[in-house]
């Protein structure tokens, strides 16, 4: 389950941020490692909401800083 979530998120990140798949690890920070600006992160969260059919509040979205944060958030809130 966690692996499946990770793979789906990874696919979105690779597409949206145009980064190499190998760089998308659980530890990777969106801003520092994946070169996303703050607007990219907002957009990414919007896409995750659509992909996983859920709503992520602004407060929670702010806490999502790494790929692992996103995976954990989605797994524990679905």
């Amino acid at each position, binding site marked *: 389950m966690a692996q499946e979530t990770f793979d789906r998120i990874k696919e979105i990140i690779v597409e949206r941020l145009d980064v190499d798949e190998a760089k998308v690890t659980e530890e990777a920070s969106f801003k520092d490692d994946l070169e996303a*600006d703050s*607007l990219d992160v*907002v*957009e990414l969260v*919007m896409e995750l909401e659509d992909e996983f059919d859920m709503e992520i509040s602004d407060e929670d979205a702010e806490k999502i800083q790494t790929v692992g944060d996103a995976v954990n958030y989605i797994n524990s809130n679905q």
Partner: protein
Amino acid sequence: MLEGKVALVTGASRGIGRAIALELAQNGANVVVNYAGSKSRADAVVKEIEELGQKAIAIQANVSEVDNVKQLVKETTEQFGSIDILVNNAGITRDNLLMRMKESEFDDVINTNLKGVFNCIKAVTRPMMKQRGGKIINLTSVVGVSGNPGQTNYVAAKAGVIGMTKSVAKELASRHINVNAVAPGFISTDMTDELSDEAKQGMYDLIPLNRLGEVEDVARAVRFLASNDSDYITGQTIHVDGGMVM
């Protein structure tokens, strides 16, 4: 010029908002006519737009209420599939001298004229970012630049809208969302029609072009900013005031 575009115009049941809704429809846009109070007037505008061959719906919403605005934008995208143009026109006045101005008069104007603009921009940003483009046009006023006695609340809100326009323009530029403002001066309305010739002459003396503006003068500037002709313009305030404030 705007064929296939979907425009949401707040406060579109009368005055400048109505003229903008009709102008956009005349140029091919489908229009959501937002209104706060008068359903019958909003329905009349919808009918006029349909007679022009475009689609239109009237949706009631108080722009100062976040939940109302979310619902307004949701209904717009559900009915029309997208939202390409937002015109923040809804506004109120509660004029009074500073010394007499009640806190409620200040708050009401700020809530509708400034926070209302924030609410609407925030709500459309999501669909516009997904579409990778959009046009946001905020109605401000030349008094937001020049100041005006008796309108501390209104002027503060309108000056705030100019600042907000610039900030949001910078934030959303990379997503091809243009954000501009239009600042009308003295515009001919039912209210100005009733002024004495002397009072009118007093106004003309302040206006280099020597006449009051018409609501259509404002609507045409909005139409320009809503179209692709203005793709390289963002963060600006266009004065439609006959040269009154430069």
